Structures are given as C-alpha cells and as structure tokens.
C-alpha cells in the first residue's frame, strides 16, 4: 500500500479534508489498486478483438438475412414474372449477370453450363420476341421426381436445387426437364465463387440466386435487368397477395411454359 501511496496521491482524490471525505477517499482509492499497464493491455486487446470480430459480425448479419438455423418458409413461394414486352432482344444483361454471379464460363458451347439463356421466338407471322429461360422452379418438378438419390430437391419456399454432395451425375434429371434448364459440368471448374460451389461431373441449374434471397437480396438477373433500364423481370413471393408479383399476375394475362404438363412453374411470362 505504502509503495502505491505516492502515485495514488498524485493521480487520486485530493489529499486532506474531513473524515468522511477521508473515508470516501479511502473507498475511492480501492480501484486505484489496479495495474494500469495491465489495464491498458486489456483495453488494447479488447479493441483489437473488437476490430477483428466486428466485420465478421457484420458479415454474419449480412449473410444471414434468414438465420441459418431457421428453415426456408413454407408460407413463401418465390417466383418470377418475365414481361416479354419489356425484354430487349439486344440485351443480354441477365445472362452476363448470372454468369458473373455464379462463376459460369462466358463462352457458350453445347457443353458449357448455361443457367439462363435468351431465346428468340418467331411466330407464324414472322413477329420476333426475345425472353430469358431458366429453371422454372416447378411446384411438381420432374427433375426431383426422377433423381435416384434425391440430390435434386425442392426447398420449402419452392426453389429447386441440386445437392452437390449427392448428385452422382446420371443426367436423368436433364432427360426429364421440359425446359432444358439443366447443365452438366463437362469440364474441371475454375474461378468458383464462394457462394456457389460447383463441380465437374454434377448437374446444376438456376438456383434463383438462393444465396442472395437468403440475404434479402434480389436475384442477379433481376437486378441486372433493372440496372439496364428494362425491369422485365419481377421477383417476389407468389403466395403473398400483397406482393407486386402476385398483384401483377392477378392483373395481366400470364402463362407458364408447357402449361399442358401442369407442373405449376414458379416462373411466369407475360406478353408471349
């Protein structure tokens, strides 16, 4: 104590005064027993830990708009509405955005993965239209029915996905898909994106940008289409009557591709 006295006196409560003040001063002196060097180290440590953890916490928060433990909601049915009249035949923004988002090859060949493609339609009178075609995220997906291992599956919120760990690469789902929406990875994969694991020998298709949806972001193609000034693709919850997509579908004539198959597609088209 005595050894600590002078320094405490120098930095502590004013010396002298009443007994009460003296008692108070004794009480006030107690915390001053801490080692300031140690406190400083602890403070620096805490600050550094904060610096280290904070971005992680922020990223964690960003990456999990839906907490990881919480399953996808059955009350939602994610879908898209493509307004073909707004789709510019010369615009490929949705395709390039998809390629960039998922690390898909830019070169388009018969063996390259194409999760979304622009299809040009010509009717009997010669009228041309252009529209994007991707996985239609069916309510009754034939790819899920035929998959022998259950690697093709439908999430509770209607998103049809492929489990990379159980896909054996039999390609039966590709035979079954009426929209040619699936691609087989024919070559070793380079330039993978952390959010989108891919692998040679597996089948893959549009995930509706599930990694973005789970962070409350829009699919890359929807965002790119809007950024290009077309707003031809509307994304939202088909089950929510108040959502813009549900209201649009209620208001305008839309169609499902191969509606005769009664698959209940999550992607709808207006203007065909």
């Amino acid at each position, binding site marked *: 104590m005595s050894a600590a006295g002078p320094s405490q006196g120098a930095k502590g409560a004013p010396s002298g005064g009443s007994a009460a003040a003296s008692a108070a001063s004794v009480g006030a002196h107690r915390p001053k027993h801490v080692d300031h060097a140690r406190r400083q180290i602890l403070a620096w440590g805490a600050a550094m830990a904060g610096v280290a953890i904070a971005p992680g916490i922020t990223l964690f928060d960003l990456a999990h708009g839906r907490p990881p433990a919480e399953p996808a909601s059955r009350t939602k049915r994610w879908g898209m509405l493509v307004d073909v009249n707004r789709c510019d035949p010369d615009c490929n923004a949705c395709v390039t955005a998809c390629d960039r988002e998922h690390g898909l090859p830019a070169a*388009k*060949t*018969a*063996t*390259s*993965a*194409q999760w979304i*493609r*622009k*299809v*040009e*339609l*010509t*009717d*009997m009178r010669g009228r041309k239209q252009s529209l994007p*075609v991707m996985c239609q995220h069916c309510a009754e997906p*034939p790819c*899920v*029915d*035929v*998959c*022998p*291992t*259950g*690697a093709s599956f439908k999430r509770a919120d209607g998103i049809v996905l492929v489990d990379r*760990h*159980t*896909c*054996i*690469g*039999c*390609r*039966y789902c*590709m*035979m*079954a*898909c*009426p*929209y*040619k929406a*699936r*691609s*087989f*990875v*024919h*070559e*070793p994969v380079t330039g993978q994106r952390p959010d989108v694991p891919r692998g*040679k*020998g*597996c*089948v893959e298709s549009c995930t509706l940008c599930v990694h973005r949806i789970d962070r409350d972001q829009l699919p890359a193609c929807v965002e790119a289409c809007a950024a290009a000034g077309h707003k031809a693709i509307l994304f939202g919850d088909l089950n929510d009557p108040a959502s813009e997509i549900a209201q649009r579908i209620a208001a305008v004539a839309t169609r499902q*591709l*191969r509606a005769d*198959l009664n698959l209940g597609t999550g992607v709808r088209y207006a203007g*065909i």
Partner: protein
Amino acid sequence: MNRAAFARAEARWFWLLAAAGAAVVLAGLLAAHFMEEHGHVVTGMDNQVVWGMPHVFAIFMIVAASGVLNVASIGSVFGQAVYKARAPLSGLLCLALLAGGLFVLMLDLGRPERMVVAATHYNFKSVFAWNVFLYSGMFAIVAVYLWTLMEPRLGAWSKPAGLAAFAWRIVLTTGTGAIFAFLVARQAYGSALLPPLFIVMSFAWGLAVFLVVQSAMYVWNGRELPAPVARRMRNLLGVFIVAVLYLTAVYHLTNLYFAKQVAFVRFILVDGGVYPLLFWGGYVVVGSLLPLVLIYHPRFGRPRSMLAASLLVVAGAFALLYVFIVGGQAWPLDIFPGYRTTSSFGDGRVAAYAPSVPEVLLGLGGLGVAFLITVIGVRVLHFLPQDDLRPAAEAGKP
C-alpha cells in the same frame, strides 16, 4: 486329338480368350478413367444429347440380360425339356450381361466414385432408384435359381425359383422401359407402349445372344446342335423378331397420329440423316428382314445361318437403340409450340452427336465384362446343354 492333348489345347484357348476379354475390359476401364479425369467433354455427349453411346451399350446389355433368361423360363416355368437343358447357360448369360451393362452405366456417371451414395440414398419416386433394386435383386434371384439348377438336391426348388426369376425379369424390363416411358418432356419418350416394347425387344435380343453363345460353345466342343432343337429355337427367334417389328411400327404409328409428333416422326424416319438410315437400313433391313430370310427361307436353315441371323439381330438392336436414345434426344424440346426458336443453348436446333473413342471403348468394355464372365463360367462349371446325351430317338422328336 487324344483327350490329354485336347485338354491342353482347350486350356490354352481358354487363357487366350480370357486374356482377350480382360484386355477389352482394361481398355474400357482406361477409357472411363480418361473420361473421369477430363470430364465428359471428351465424349460426344453434351447438354442436349446427355445420354450417348455408353447408354446404347448398357441398355442393350440390360435388356438382353433379362431376355436371355427367357430360355430358362421356358424350361422351368413352361416345362419345355429342350429349354430346361439350357437353363444354366441362360442364367449365366443373364448375370454376365447384367454385370456388363451396369459396368458401363456406372462408369459413365459424372461421379462414378459416388456409387456408395447411389446405394445409400434413395428417392423412391424415381424409376432409376427402383431399378437399383431390380438389378441387384435380379443378381440374387438368378444366383439362387442357378444354384437350384446345378445342385441336384435342390432340384425341386428350381421351378419356384425359375418362376420368381421370370416374374422379376418381366418387372425389370418394365422398369427399363419405364426409364423412358416416364419422361414427359421429350417427344421420343413418354409413351406407355415403351415397357411392353422393351419386353418384346428383350425376348428377341436375349435369344439372339443366347444363340450366338450356344453356337460358339457347340463349335468349341466339336458338337452340332440337334436339328429339332435348332429348328425350334430358330423359329422362336423369328417370332420375336416379328413381334419387335410389330410393336415398333405401332409406336411410330401412334406418334404419327398425333399432329404434334409428326415433325419428330418425320425426322426419325425420313429426313433426320443418320437416324432414318440406321432405322431402315440397320434395324429394319439388316436387323430384322435379313434374319427373317435366314430363318424362314428354305434355302437356309443351317446352323451357320442361324448364327448369322442372331448376329444380325444384335447389330439391328444397336441400330434401333441408337436411333431411339440418341435420335430421341437430338430432336429439340418443344418448349414454345407454334414458334420457331433459336438460342445459344441449341433451342430449336437438331443436336449434332458423334460418339468419341473413349465412350465406345467404355461400351466395348462392358461387352468385355459379359464375355469374360461367360468364358470363365463355362470353363469352371458345366453350362454346356446336355440334350445330346439323351437317346437319339428322343432328341429327334420335334
């Protein structure tokens, strides 16, 4: 040649044939390794034609595997002595062809190392998953059936085992046909006619394979197939060839009746390039009409013409399967009926497919597996039909 010299020569030939079979299997394995290493980009398959030459080989072998068992079924289930003598060979060929077909099918997978996943994860809504059980069950049932046939003490069980094998093989071929019948997306498939068509195809192709192997075994042993036996089996092959022709015609005619299918039928049968050529030239003429002439024309009818007819049926089977599997996928999906379509992904365009060397080698490797199992089987066990040991008068009865 005395008995010892014959045994030595036979042993030499056996090892030679086994080595040849093993070399073909090795080539198939190396091809599969090459495909696994580089990905399916080294094959002719792509995102439009997703099943190619390996599937032609595999499906031929699996369909023929169930069909070849018919010889045993006619013996055990329907009590025909001539066929019962051939039941063990029929069972062996069934196992050999099934193993060969599965060899190809498994090694063509994008991830063949995940077979354990396929064996432990099942989606029971998938006809592919059913087939995993049907194929493994077939191995087990036919193995038990062979046991009852070859172990005299179990002889009484051969009839129920044969009946079970017969029922199982019908379901198995139905399952193989259903792989395509359940595909609503593509115009070539999605027909309830396909399972019965596959069953009839299995009758013809299985019997043809059986006759080829039986001919080789008789030549090997310096024996001649008894004429009445040869006549009965030849006639049966003829009936099966006509049955396949009939159901194939019905399949195309029903397609032709639906306006939405006409363009596809025209493609397959008239202006689709290699596909009509293989259908009419390969399947109809070489694989059906020529064998029928060889079987029924009075100028023919010798053992050699029966062998030739059987080989032609096998060749025709490959032609028909190529048209069915590859041609059926080459035709573009009709996603937008009433529109012409173009895209970077082959929409509205007939896909080009040319089989590559690795995938053909893989298919041949499967045939090599079937060959090797057969050669080893007939060497170590008694599979040669024994009706030539019966009294000549009895064997001579029609």
